[in-house]
């Protein structure tokens, strides 16, 4: 038995080797077939995925004021910008930005800035009207965002995200 085994090893591949590979292949396919449903079960469930939209009435929000609403369990900042804030956001050399984007590409109407209020660094919620650029400041790791929600200083790699939204009337929006 042992003699036969060593002889087979020395002569290269054998039918026994084929059986090893075949057994392993069956196991891999079997584990894979059962594995995907198990992995996928951890993904967001159907009720979470059922897209919620959030309506916001803009009338009560004064110039220079911002509110936070909840959309898909995330905070969304709705900020009624002042003329100075709009001017400050426009008056930036775009090529110098870490995540270059013009202010005009981030708003549908210049006076209404609508952003997902989650720091693009590690997910904290930035504090409004704080920081070197009077936009937002993230207390966790010190990211400064300007009045267009663009990252200017700090570790965050990207600008605050703009959620999909539409103006249903001049004074109300639907996010999502």
């Amino acid at each position: 038995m042992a003699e036969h085994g060593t002889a087979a090893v020395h002569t290269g591949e054998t039918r026994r080797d084929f059986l090893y590979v075949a057994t392993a292949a069956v196991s891999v396919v079997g584990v894979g077939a059962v594995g995907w449903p198990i992995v996928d079960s951890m993904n967001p469930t159907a009720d979470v995925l059922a897209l919620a939209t959030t309506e916001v009435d803009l009338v009560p929000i004064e110039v220079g004021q911002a509110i936070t609403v909840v959309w898909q369990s995330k905070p969304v900042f709705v900020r009624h910008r002042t003329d100075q804030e709009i001017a400050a956001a426009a008056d930036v050399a775009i090529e110098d930005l870490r995540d270059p984007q013009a202010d005009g590409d981030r708003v549908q109407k210049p006076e209404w800035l609508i952003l997902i209020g989650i720091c693009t660094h590690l997910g904290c919620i930035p504090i409004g009207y704080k920081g070197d650029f009077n936009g937002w400041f993230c207390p966790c790791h010190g990211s400064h965002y300007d009045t267009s929600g663009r990252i200017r200083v700090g570790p965050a790699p990207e600008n605050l995200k703009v959620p999909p939204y539409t103006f249903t009337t001049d004074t109300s929006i639907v996010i999502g």
Partner: protein
Amino acid sequence: MSNSYRGSAVVRWVNDRLPIFTFLDHQMRDYPAPRNLNYWWNYGSLALVALVLQIVTGIFLAMHYIGDARFAFDSVEHIMRNVNYGWLLRYLHSNGAALFFLVVYVHIFRGLYYGSYKSPREILWWIGIVIVLAMMATAFMGYVLPWGQMSFWAATVITNLFSAIPLLGQEIVAWLWGGFAVGGPTLTRFYALHYLLPFVIFGLVFLHLWALRTVKSNNPLGIDVRGPQDTVPFHPYYTSKDYFGMGLFLLVLAGFVFYAPNYMGHPDNYIPANPMVTPTHIVPEWYFLPFYAILRAIPDKLGGVIAMAASLLVLFVLPWLDTSRVRSARFRPIYKVIFWFLLADVVLLGYVGSQPAEGIWIHIGRALTAYYFFHFLILTPVVGKIERPRPLPQSIAAVVLKGGKA
């Protein structure tokens, strides 16, 4: 073999069918341990004591805790106020986790000082690193369970580390969360995994001990055991020494549990989780602070995550980065110095990690992070080449019988 086993007829009957008594004798009684092990060798068994304490207190806490975001915070308060000795179980569990890390960190630095990672103990060392990684995952998920403000935002920050992965980052994070943000599904799965992982760690500890029994314990001289004259039986010599160390460990634990149970915690975690407000100053538990400082030292998200992971993963290749064939720092005049520099570097990184990420702390954190990698990637290989070790003693017995001075 088995019928030669001593003891009552019942013991012999069992041992003939399952040689459990022979096994235990080999592992814990007759096991020949180097006769010169010092107190730094207590920390391995202490870590096992801490693990068992965590598992036992954890199982009983689980009988009262509810892993649902609606009830989790209240169930922890219920444990503190209504459950008989619930406060004791919980404080033992939370302070025990912190001391578990302290013990394991000492154990790791013991290995670094005495060269316990070198051939033939590489795999023993690797299993140890995997245990630390599993401990970190377990501790992090356990910290989330009370569902206070620090729990919630620790979960948010740490899971967001995975969003730095190129291309699939967002999908992976949503998969971890089971939603679009940290929420109920996240808490429940963390509870499931927090219950599972300690048993995985227990299995890894078994592998760690198996490898240890194969390659045998290192010792303060770092030289190989040459025969029976170099060893003493594990029992009673090291069982009693380990019990003495365990007594001191339990005194320290009792000191925290009974006199300063929240000393290592954060008051913000007694505020229920609020997904709309981030606490102004979030810091992890002290045992993660050095790694947190490394994460923040790199002014780039992906880079910071890579550096933090690398700070642990570099330990896997340490057996090959260290070019010196002498194990113990006792005989390595230069390595002995840079060892203490590394320890100081890690402690200072921990302090920087506790400070806000601004001003001078950013620069200090960067310098300390650079030194950490400089130590492993440059200093360790170079020192191994240029250093001239002191002559190694003939044998463990020769040194011990001379009075322990090498």
